[in-house]
């Protein structure tokens, strides 16, 4: 395998969890809900995915467990913010703190155990084509799932009535309610979708990216996914591009170190975070770009009168 090929492969692995979490959060935010608990849902997906896979010796069961953990966490968030009308910002933060604590507790028994790696889908002939084969056809199911979910989300948001309803609910919940749409129910759905995607992103970390359980292994990826949604101005295509750009930045540090360049390792490790800040500055400074697509109701609670 050539070095270039290896770089591209690692970029894909580094980008996939970001893409999964970000596309889920994008749909959640499109419905007018800001869920800052991505990091917590992701880490719970990682630990539950690993635990289930290790216990059952089946990576696919691990993926399912990660998905369920993410959805479960997000439903907690949904119940508090949508039914009990709590602050979305504070509740999202608490979801992250709870997820980090709970995952540490659950994961304690699994620390240092050998992992179950999610196998690559081996497509006969196609995977064997030199260069193109491994890059296009040599991945595990979650890599393809991340791309399919992104394409599916774009299709639903822009080509279907359901997407129109989600955008309407996020754009003006009072109007949507007046027309007879159930704002809370649409939001519950979008929150659960976002939670599921975050759970899958976590499962990818502990089953494919580094197949083992390490405490706090999401290391801020959930937060970067949140920044990616802003960076994408709520457009799925741009989330895809952004996730791969950030994946590349994440990987760059490792390769530069391997090349023996005299840059402190810590500086390279902090690159993804610094790049995130720079990206936020660039995109937030452009008002027309952000204003047009920003869901107008984002973060605002909605209580229908009865």
């Amino acid at each position: 395998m050539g070095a270039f090929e290896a770089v591209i492969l690692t970029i894909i692995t580094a980008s996939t969890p970001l893409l999964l979490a970000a596309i889920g959060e994008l749909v959640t935010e499109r419905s007018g809900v800001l869920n800052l608990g991505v990091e917590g849902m992701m880490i719970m997906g990682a630990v539950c995915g690993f635990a289930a896979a290790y216990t059952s010796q089946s990576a696919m069961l691990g993926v399912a467990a990660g998905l369920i953990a993410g959805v479960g966490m997000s439903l907690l968030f949904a119940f508090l913010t949508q039914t009990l009308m709590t602050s979305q910002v504070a509740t999202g933060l608490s979801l992250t703190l709870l997820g980090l604590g709970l995952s540490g507790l659950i994961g304690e028994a699994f620390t240092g155990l050998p992992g179950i790696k999610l196998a690559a889908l081996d497509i006969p002939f196609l995977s064997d084509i030199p260069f193109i084969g491994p890059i296009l056809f040599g991945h595990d199911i979650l890599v393809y799932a991340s791309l399919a979910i992104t394409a599916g989300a774009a299709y639903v948001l822009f080509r279907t009535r359901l997407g129109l309803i989600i955008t309407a609910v996020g754009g003006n919940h009072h109007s949507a309610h007046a027309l007879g749409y159930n704002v809370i129910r649409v939001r519950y759905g979008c929150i659960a979708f976002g939670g599921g995607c975050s759970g899958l992103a976590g499962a990818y970390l502990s089953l494919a990216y580094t197949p083992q359980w390490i405490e706090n292994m999401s290391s801020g990826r959930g937060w970067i996914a949140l920044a990616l949604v802003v960076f994408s101005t709520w457009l799925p295509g741009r989330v895809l591009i952004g996730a791969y750009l950030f994946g590349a930045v994440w990987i760059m540090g490792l390769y530069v170190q391997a090349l023996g360049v005299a840059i402190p390792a810590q500086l390279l490790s902090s690159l993804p975070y610094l790049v995130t800040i720079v990206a936020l500055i660039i995109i937030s400074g452009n008002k027309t770009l952000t204003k047009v697509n920003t869901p107008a109701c984002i973060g605002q609670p909605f209580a229908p009168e009865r």
Partner: protein
Amino acid sequence: MSGSAEYLLEARNIVKVFGELRANDDITLSLKPGEIHALLGENGAGKSTLVKIIYGSLQATSGQLFWQGQPVTVANPGAARDLGIGMVFQHFSLFDALTVTQNIALALPPDVDIGTLAGRIETVSNDYGLPLRADALVADLSVGERQRIEIVRCLLQEPRLLIMDEPTAVLTPQEANQLFVTLERLASEGCGVLYISHRLEEVKRICHDATILRHGKLVSRVDPQQETAASLANLMVGAEVAAVKTDRGGKTGKPLLELSGLSLPTDDPFGVALKDIELAVHAGEIVAVAGVAGNGQSEFFDAVSGERPTANAATVKISGQACGKENITQRRRRDAAFVPEERIGHGAVPDFPLSENVVLTHHAVAGGVARHGMINRAAAREVNREVTQLFDVRKGTPDPEARSLSGGNLQKFVVGREMARQPKVLVVNQPTWGVDAGAAALIRQALIDLARNGSAVLVISQDLDEIFEIADRIAVISRGELSEAYPAEDMSLEQIGLLMAGAHEKSTSGVAGS
């Protein structure tokens, strides 16, 4: 139980309870096909609650609806639309970020073909004289155009009953006339119209029947053609409303508020920029700025108050002193006072008690509410006591949270808080918007009294009745440009309507001078 087949819609003994409030208390209403039926009442009388029940947005606590003689349950707005009930909301149910077609599709059944919808929209809208571009973004449209979307949205479903909530509040007189033509055509085609308004002249003009509510109860059902505007008003309010004493023609003094070459670019993609505004308000007079909502009124208020200072000091002068660059606190220290349009969240902090809301605007001016950076709570409570007594603010406890007051009482507080200082300059945006008649009369009288005592008062209002009642001179704002201010007695509704539609823009030929 069944209803009478001659009626399109009957609502019998409708009761709706919110917590401790009986918003609708045993209300009965009936309406025939082809009839334009007025639903009258003050703010808070229960009109909106009743129509929301008919449209399925709310469920009645008790009572029964009949549709063409059959008892029905309208579970949600979708069910109402299936019956043939359409509604045009007062505050619109539109989505700024979506196109006209998308907005309309959201109110149609799921099986509607979006591909051909644009063509149908343009056909129907042209047919009824309500032209619309199907691919336009709602955010880019005027208030009048937005209302057209709402109406066309109903028309596409071939409604049997059309509910209209205060439709003319946001229209120029000419646009309102166009709307009446549309409504009369619909009625002649057999469609019933339930028409909510507080403009009694137009009710007399187009409505065949009227149901009047007060404090959630049915007061009476009358033939508006047999009533006068005054008798309808008495039925609505339940008492004679004290007429406002104007005694116009007093002497005016030197200009206390002067705006010259006031321009302000917008910082919001959906906002309105102010262009080269000229105006002087003299001691002893009330000048009113009329205009349709969304033509730059709030930007104008922000610029005059100093919430958004301008780059050039000379654009705003208070008592002859240039202060365009000063912020709102500095302008208050020049003995100016301001009342914004939104009571809740702009003029007052909803979660704060009234005494703290006194601090909101009094902290920078003499009176001892704040000194050396510390707040004197006792002084603030004292101001609150004076204001609420003077302006008859009714409240359950001495110092309740602002949000617990009714609209009229909170508006009296917000206006009274500024009046208590006897400012030399007062700028008020929509002084009686959404306020009951008693509170409105009290506020208008207070504005007039302040002017007669030598202050300069600038009122921004969408309510033409109010403007004619209190203003000495009238200017009109349209797309961020302000017309010359003409003496009120020289102005007619038609002239104001033309100015609202932008007749003064880019040409200063005197419309009212003819």
